[in-house]
């Protein structure tokens, strides 16, 4: 809070300078952190074994609608149904 009090008696130019600094540091931090996050979770997703698991509700319906569906189809259906499901809930 001391720094805050510091700002109190700043003149407007200093405030603009300060804002510019915050803009740089702020957007910088946001991008650095989110890009790091992208990198790491992309790596994880490669390392993590492809999951056979499809969420039960989806599977049940999937099998109901297409008992002989290939893994890929099932996934599509699952994804779509998940979407529909989300949509309804939202």
């Amino acid at each position: 809070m001391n720094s805050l009090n510091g700002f109190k008696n700043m003149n407007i130019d200093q405030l603009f300078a300060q804002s510019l600094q915050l803009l740089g540091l702020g957007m910088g931090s946001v991008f650095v952190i989110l890009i790091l996050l992208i990198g790491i979770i992309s790596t994880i997703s490669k390392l993590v074994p492809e999951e056979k698991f499809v969420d039960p509700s989806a599977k049940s319906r999937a099998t109901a609608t297409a008992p002989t569906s290939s893994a890929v189809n099932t996934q599509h259906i699952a994804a779509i149904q998940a979407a529909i499901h989300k949509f309804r809930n939202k």
Partner: protein
Amino acid sequence: MEQGLIQLWASTGIANFTMGSVVMIIISSLLIYLAIAKGFEPLLLLPIGFGGVLANIPIAEIAGPEGLLGILYHSGIETGVFPLLIFMGVGAMTDFGPLLARPSLMILGAAAQFGIFATLFGAVAMNMIPGMEFSMADAAAIAIIGGADGPTAIYVASRLAPDLLGAIAVAAYSYMALVPIIQPPIMKLLTTEKERGTKMSVLRHVSKLEKILFPLTLLLITILLLPSATPLVGMLCFGNLLKECGVVDRLSKTAQGELINIVTIFLGLAVGSKLAADKFLNLETIGILLLGMVAFSIGTAAGLLMGKVMYRMTGGAVNPLIGSAGVSAVPMAARVANKVGLEANPQNFLLMHAMGPNVAGVIGSAVSAGVLLAIVG
């Protein structure tokens, strides 16, 4: 008896009203009306509006240090406990699957935070208007409205500018409710019909393990780079871990159910206690409302422009509209992107693709809050 009558009259509202409190009660009633009749974020604006009415009742001093609202504010918002518990509940309600299915889209959630920091200049500039006086801390608290995330805005305001908290919270939730009106014109202005019609490929299935590792990864990065953001990010991650780990379902159910409901009631009433005439009826509030609108618009534009960049770079694999969802305002902004996309192409379902940037925006604003608290706080 006369003496008693006098004492009673002296204790009526009519005899004690100030112009200010009357006006504030009317404004608070308007919030209640908008919440009920127009569906403006009713879960928050209804309690906030009602709290505002109670806070402006003469004599009763319900917002005073010994009144219910004052006690709630002191114990839950001054301490930061309420917004942090809400954030935990949000984490327990959020499915980061869409974001994990296509992590690159998080960039959109980053870009949209530009609205926060650009607004700092507007707030500072307002100091040039006579009668307006915003410190850097005030400016930062106002700018966070651009994060389009209620608990983040309340948390930051409670730390940097408690006096402005009422106006900031009202602005944040009102504009989140107005997203379907604020964003579409900007979206249509900055994108072409062709771009808006772009369809995106179905999202891959995300495994349970990835969903469990995500909150832990996010927390780790935040710890390493920006500890000042860990209270917010930490509780978000904790709530999400409760949801995804699958071994504490009863805690997850409570965090996203009864607990967040209880805290929402208390938080709303407590925020309402800040709608007192002397703190709210001044030029600053007008400034805050204007700046909040600016922040939302700039954030939306920044997200869209980054969307257009990704559209080019991916050779049309990304629909720029989902960039506007980067401001967060979950899930409203994602639904708006979906709606505008459907107008351009009836086969174009963007909802799930917009959810990624949408929740990334929540993380983005929490990170921005951390920077503001670290440098200005």
